[in-house]
């Protein structure tokens, strides 16, 4: 693969088609969840979960289990810890996340640095490896998409009322702690599956940037979901094609495409609000 102006050549490569399929499944799921991540101010939470991958990889190798499983299990463990400590601690949620993020990262780095051969796994986690996806990766990404659709059917209204007023949500009989926990866990799962594709540095951006663009393009919930999905899909296709032509890191190029779309939507914000 080299830098070229061949706009369609990438479609002839099976690994690029796999990458395209994976992105077309992951990006919309991330974008829709991103609307909740933005409204519940959870971007830092998603960052902490993604950085737990260091320890997850190290634990997988230490205990000889599949690293995908160890990463997801440790990430979810961290997520549950964050939620439970958040309920009991007097520290602000941001401070608590920062402390756990520091523990998860430093523990992972210590464990990995003790085994020199693990450094390459680190690189894959940092930047993702979307061009060498396996059938299992595609299966997991499809699971994320279907799971997100089901989650949005069941949870969307509840999360909407909760984001307006927790007391009002309780008055409506919504078990807000349960739904907040389910949201956090699902964001954790999607983050951990997503970082295999776009890397831990970019996976939160795949949630936040399309969601932020959607806020500029729509006044209501329906429009926001549609806009977030369209921005995510357009960024996926153009980012993937651009990464082929520029010979650049795919995950970062997709996020850059989404960021450009976000910037393009900025001038529309006021007009949409007035409409």
């Amino acid at each position: 693969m080299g830098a070229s102006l061949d706009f369609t050549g990438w479609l002839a490569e099976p690994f690029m088609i796999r990458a395209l399929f994976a992105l077309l499944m992951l990006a919309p799921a991330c974008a829709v969840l991103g609307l909740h991540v933005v409204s519940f101010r959870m971007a830092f939470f998603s960052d902490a979960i993604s950085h737990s991958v260091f320890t997850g990889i190290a634990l997988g190798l230490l205990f000889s289990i599949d690293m995908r499983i160890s990463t997801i299990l440790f990430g979810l463990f961290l997520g549950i810890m964050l939620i439970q400590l958040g309920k009991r601690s007097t520290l602000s949620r941001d401070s608590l996340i920062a402390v756990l993020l520091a523990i998860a990262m430093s523990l992972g780095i210590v464990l990995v640095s003790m085994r020199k051969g693990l450094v390459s796994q680190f690189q894959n986690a940092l930047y993702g490896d979307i061009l060498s996806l396996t059938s299992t990766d595609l299966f997991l990404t499809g699971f994320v998409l279907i799971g997100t659709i089901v989650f949005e059917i069941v949870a969307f209204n509840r999360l909407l009322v909760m984001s307006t007023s927790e007391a009002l949500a309780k008055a409506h009989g919504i078990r807000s702690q349960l739904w907040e926990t389910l949201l956090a866990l699902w964001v954790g799962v999607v983050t951990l599956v997503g970082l295999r594709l776009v890397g831990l540095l970019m996976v939160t951006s795949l949630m936040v940037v399309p969601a932020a663009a959607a806020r500029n393009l729509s006044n209501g919930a329906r429009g926001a979901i549609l806009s977030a999905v369209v921005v995510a899909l357009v960024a996926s296709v153009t980012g993937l094609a651009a990464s082929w032509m520029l010979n650049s890191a795919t995950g970062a190029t997709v996020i850059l495409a989404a960021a450009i779309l976000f910037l393009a939507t900025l001038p529309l914000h006021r007009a949409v609000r007035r409409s």
Partner: protein
Amino acid sequence: MSVTVTVQDLTVKLDGHTILDRLNLTLAGGVINALIGPNGAGKTTLIHALLGFTPYNGTIRFDGLDRKPRIGYVPQKTNVEPGAPLTVTDLLSAGLSRRPVWSGTNKSLRSKIEATLRNVGIPNRIDRRLDTLSGGEFQRVMLAQAMLRDPDLLILDEPNTGMDITGHQLFCGLVDRIHREHQTTTLLITHDLGVVADHSKRVIGLNVSVQFEGEVHEALVEENLVRLFGPHSHGWKAEQHAHNGRTV
């Protein structure tokens, strides 16, 4: 039929502290019952107990109902984030329908929402973003979401907080009109004794336990107010307020 709410021996303890101590009170059916008391008196805790999300000892009875009561609630605080892509319809549908609002609102629900918004005086705000509404308009939306539940008990938790005088008076007038039309048993929590005198029939003074309870003209007297709020409420009289239109 209007519902009377009877609270007997209600005690709420949180972290070893007694927040409410053996409350016995009645929210009379079909009238506006005001709940007043200093900060920390337990007013919000009482609301939470009525709504069923604070554990308590004692009994709360909704007389005349053989089903779970429907409670409409206008909260004191909301946190609609500026820039959030949510319309009035989104919020009102989300509270009523299991169908996710992103899949659209069905015609009958939309008609019901339109009628309720007309009733609260904001007929053309149905598709407006929540973050573009004025404080007064937003409170009307919250009142609409409470009324859409066709409540047996309507709880208004300091609904005038943050409103200017005009918005405040318009909102109180609206509550009066809606109350005349529906005769819903209402619990109004407020710090404004003028609002109590002008708009409620009964008043309950709360400070951990019930300090006084009764018809406004009987209970809202200086002796009770001094007992509830301390000596700085000395000199306030409901009759004087009614005569001068003065608000404390």
